[in-house]
């Protein structure tokens, strides 16, 4: 630890460039399981203070959420506290609010030398304050860990009001919820195509068809439609293919098409329900649910529909596969002893591991873009809310509180 600290300080003195600092922040970070960092309350440069959404709290919450930091929150810089808790770096900022606008400096400091290591200035409307804070945390996260953080990611989900269901989007932490659909009584199975484009199933015509929409433009159009059921879409992050389930050949089978809805191709030919498909992150494989042996189980096949093999055997009813962005795990929901819990399994069917052991049903897993968390729907407490958990079963966090949230899809 001491060696790392010395190296860290030494390099700042010597190199002083941003590039060199990044390297050394990484070596500082690599010395801990939980990186010690302090977040100090920001200071207003005029009399206008922040009453809601304090950015220093958002940054600290982000760091806490990741599970990779030991975060100390303090109203002011405190050398004794820092020394006592092994704090080598801290975040501090200053801001000026004028009307509806804010100008904010967010800085990362060396706690020992009290040197500025890195700073960012954000300027904009106050309503974007949370976005500014998330963006700064992402920047810090990247500098310390060399990874893209999940703090600017968003989650699509469905809100269930009586018999109407509409799509919503929210920040990964549950804030900033916006309604995306208003037409059609039932809108379900939302999935990101890219950060601004979504695909989902709507009953706008009184039956399920696929629609695509632009979040920023608020526009949508019908995508795949027929007299039959077109449902459960998922987009690849690698190529332009959408995988979905269609009953145009009799009962639900897996199909793919491109992003314009053309080049439809049937991949499964079973007289059983084949549905709920998702892509492997490399785009070579598809995981899906099939009841070909009597009850739903998870299968994996190549992207052209061959080499199908079953991968779940630990329960009578297993469903909703979600492939980790790292590729090494598939999350799913498994019915055991009359209730559903989230499990993970390797794509070759080995190492099934239970993630949740919670009251109520825990279903519909979706991975954070950095694979550090799984969001899912839990009916613990009687209401349906979205929660987050780490794949090892730690760090559970409630994301929604309205009690009617379902079917989350985390942005890629």
């Amino acid at each position, binding site marked *: 630890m001491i060696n790392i600290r010395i190296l860290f300080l030494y390099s700042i003195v010597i190199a002083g460039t941003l590039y060199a600092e990044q390297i050394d922040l990484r070596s500082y970070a690599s010395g801990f399981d939980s990186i010690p960092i302090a977040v100090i309350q920001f200071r207003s440069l005029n009399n206008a203070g922040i009453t809601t959404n304090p950015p220093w709290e958002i940054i600290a919450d982000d760091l806490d959420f990741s599970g990779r930091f030991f975060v100390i929150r303090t109203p002011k810089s405190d050398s004794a506290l820092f020394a006592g808790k092994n704090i080598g770096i801290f975040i501090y900022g200053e801001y000026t609010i004028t009307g509806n606008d804010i100008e904010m400096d967010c800085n990362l400091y060396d706690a020992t030398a009290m040197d500025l290591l890195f700073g960012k200035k954000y300027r904009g409307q106050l309503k974007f304050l949370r976005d500014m804070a998330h963006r700064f945390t992402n920047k810090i996260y990247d500098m310390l860990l060399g990874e893209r953080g999940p703090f600017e990611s968003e989650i699509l989900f469905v809100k269930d009001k*009586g*018999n109407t*269901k509409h799509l919503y989007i929210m920040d990964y932490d549950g804030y900033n919820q916006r309604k995306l659909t208003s037409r059609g009584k*039932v809108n*379900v*199975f939302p999935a990101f195509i890219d950060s601004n484009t979504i695909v989902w*199933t709507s*009953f706008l015509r*009184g*039956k*399920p068809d696929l629609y695509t929409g632009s979040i920023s433009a608020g526009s949508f159009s019908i995508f795949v439609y027929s*007299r039959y*059921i077109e*449902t*459960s879409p998922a987009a690849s992050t690698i190529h332009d293919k959408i995988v979905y*389930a269609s*009953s145009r050949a009799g*009962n*639900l089978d897996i199909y793919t098409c491109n992003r314009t809805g053309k080049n439809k191709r049937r991949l499964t030919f079973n007289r059983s*329900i*084949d*549905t*709920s498909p998702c892509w492997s992150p490399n785009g070579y494989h598809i995981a899906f*649910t099939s*009841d070909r042996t009597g*009850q*739903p189980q998870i299968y994996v096949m190549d992207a052209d529909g061959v080499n199908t093999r079953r991968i779940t055997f630990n329960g009578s*009813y297993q*469903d*909703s596969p979600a492939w980790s962005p790292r590729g090494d795990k598939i999350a799913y*929901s498994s*019915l055991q002893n009359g209730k559903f819990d989230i499990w993970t399994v390797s794509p070759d069917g080995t190492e099934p591991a239970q993630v949740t052991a919670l009251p109520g049903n825990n*279903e*519909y897993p979706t991975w954070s873009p950095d694979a550090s968390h799984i969001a899912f729907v839990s009916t613990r407490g009687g209401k349906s809310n979205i929660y987050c958990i780490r794949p090892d079963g730690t760090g559970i966090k409630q994301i929604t509180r309205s009690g009617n949230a*379902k*079917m989350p899809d985390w942005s890629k």
Partner: protein
Amino acid sequence: MVMKTRTLSAGILCVALLLSFTGCKKQVTTLQEPQPEPKPDTTFTEPEPLQSIDTSDEVSFNEAELEAEFQRKVQENLRTIYFDYDSYTLKQAEIEKLGAAGNFLREHPSLRVLIEGHCDERGSSEYNMGLGENRSRVIKDYLKNYGIPAIRMEITSWGKERPVVAGCSNDACHAKNRRAEFKVLSR
């Protein structure tokens, strides 16, 4: 063997003809008692007042009434069909309901219907979308075999998205949601 059967059936035919012949003969020979002469009316009976005329066969030309009558018949004949958990097999009691539905559709040959499958709230929405469709398809197939052209029947599924009762905790409650409903598309 074939010859034998033929001879046998020819014999049966002969006996049958003979029997029917003797039957005819009997009818001709039986004489009926002559009817007594009608007596002339001696008393005058008042005609029944108009109010008491039986109106059960009356045909209404009121549009709203006709519509209500049609809707009543639709509800009476195109009844909701129920299923067991995670199943799309038709139960005996439900098959009887489908007989009534088949007859009704035969009597109204211009009627086109949508059969909507629904599921209870257990299991994933994706899988239940397929299960609901299987429920509507098994009904379409039954009615097709009953003699209703497939072109008169559309099927779809709402999966578990439109339960009759939400938030069930026992099977009696879940059972109300495992169903297929008829909707009239055109007539």
